[in-house]
């Protein structure tokens, strides 16, 4: 499994003068799934945006494979193996399914590998293969989810950052998504950091649960402990 793929140390970030994240430490070991959970406004999305470079940290540092990410422009991150599926998933509605997917693999020099990655995505998500020529905004919510995930996977990331993958989706689709993440972790060693409101489905798939509260990490613990220890769950998650 190797060491930690992603590490944040004393990370702080915010919008303008308003601090949102304060003193955030986290470690995501390679080949594991970490779920960031917590109430609305706890800073989960801000954390993800900071990790992917869209928001500049005001303090602290982010390490990928032990290397500081400071100064790496957002558009270079994908070349370092980081894929970020943003809130609302970021499917480009004006482009076709195929164009969205091609975009995911476009940074790769190797054309044949990129084409093969596209085929793999179509095998993984068959409904997308049937709708190649459709525009992004013609897709259903579930199909958009597939497209966003598929587009991220087409870039062969080592680290997948997912913002609210369950948002607005039917429970069956959420379950499929979570199962897929587990399968990718087991088969390809993919490392996943996902932000979720849906605590139960997140903890069901995750190895590690990171509970955020008011911009800080309140608790980082094995997901199994958060699932099974009723006292801990009451104290930190309120159910």
């Amino acid at each position, binding site marked *: 499994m190797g060491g930690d793929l992603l590490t944040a140390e004393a990370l702080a970030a915010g919008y303008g003068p308003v601090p949102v994240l304060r003193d955030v430490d986290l470690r995501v070991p390679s080949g594991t799934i970490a779920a960031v959970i917590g109430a609305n406004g706890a800073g989960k999305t801000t954390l993800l945006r900071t990790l992917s470079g*869209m928001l500049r940290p005001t303090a602290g540092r982010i390490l990928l494979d032990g290397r500081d990410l400071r100064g790496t422009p957002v*558009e270079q*991150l*994908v*070349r370092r193996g980081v894929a970020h599926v943003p809130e609302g998933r970021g499917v480009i509605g004006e482009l076709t399914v195929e164009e969205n997917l091609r975009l995911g693999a*476009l940074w790769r020099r190797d054309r044949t590998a990129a084409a093969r990655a596209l085929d793999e995505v179509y095998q993984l998500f068959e409904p997308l293969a049937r709708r190649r020529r459709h525009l992004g905004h013609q897709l259903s919510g579930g199909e958009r989810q597939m497209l966003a995930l598929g587009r991220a996977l087409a*870039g062969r990331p080592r680290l997948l950052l997912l913002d609210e993958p369950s948002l607005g989706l039917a429970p069956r689709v959420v379950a499929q998504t979570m199962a897929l993440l587990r399968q990718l972790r087991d088969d390809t060693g993919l490392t996943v950091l996902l932000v979720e409101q849906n605590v139960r489905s997140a903890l069901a798939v995750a190895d590690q649960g990171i509970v955020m509260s008011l911009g800080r990490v309140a608790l980082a613990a094995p997901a199994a402990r958060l699932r099974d220890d009723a006292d801990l769950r009451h104290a930190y998650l309120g159910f």
Partner: protein
Amino acid sequence: MDRFLFLTLDGLSRGAVYAAFALALVLIWRAGRIVNFAQGAMAVAAAYVAYSVTAATGSYWLGFGAALLAGLLLGAVVDVAVMRLVDHRSPLNPVIVALGLVLLIQAVLGMVYGNEYLPARAPFSRTALTVGGTAVLSPYDLFVFATVGVVGAALVWIFTRTAIGLRMRAAAFAPEVSRLLGVNVGGMLTLGWALASGVGALAAMLVIPTGLGLHPYAMDLVFVSAFTAAVLGGLDSPPGAVVGGLGVGLLLSYVSGYAGGDLIPLAVLALLLTVLLLRPGGLFAPVTARRV
């Protein structure tokens, strides 16, 4: 009837140039939500480069190539050195800066080349060929059609078939998501400016020999006509720009043929006003649901 046919063909030839120029406006609008009011002046500057190169080498085609190159380069420079520095929070800011750029470019051209009309050569005869006693198109008209057709087809190919075109469209539609996917959004915007300005330079090279000659203000009326064409087609729509350009070309040809050339500026402005009043989104604007 012969006269009508002649005016129609002449209008289409004129319209092809407007279409190219309108297309350039649409390119920049789609890439950066800016109407480039400096496009006319930038295109004239490129045409002056052609004049100098042709004067020095004696070759029209070297000048033609130099104009396209100068256009591409000028577009990239204007984006990087001017537009990138403008605060885009108010849409008025880039417009005012573009208008300032017009004054600057025209003043510099006037200082360097003088404010007199310089002769602008056409590479082919502008005398209309006659078919069965009816005057139809001149060889130069055919050259205009072919050039605009090739450039239009090349743009379609770039935007729909190439990786760089896909990046440019993605960067325009969703800059933030595109950056996450590894697209250099700023670079794509600069490329969009370069392409648009290159197409603008081409339009200037095609249209200036049909007028009074080369002059710092030579593209002003063309700009207004092409802007009208772009608005007519809907600023977001490349096919709309082409149809709008041909439509404006036809209208102006009929107006000058049947009512007199003096009325052209009036006709253009009347058309612009009518479009803005009746259908400000343009003929080809996608139907947007009413916001509730």
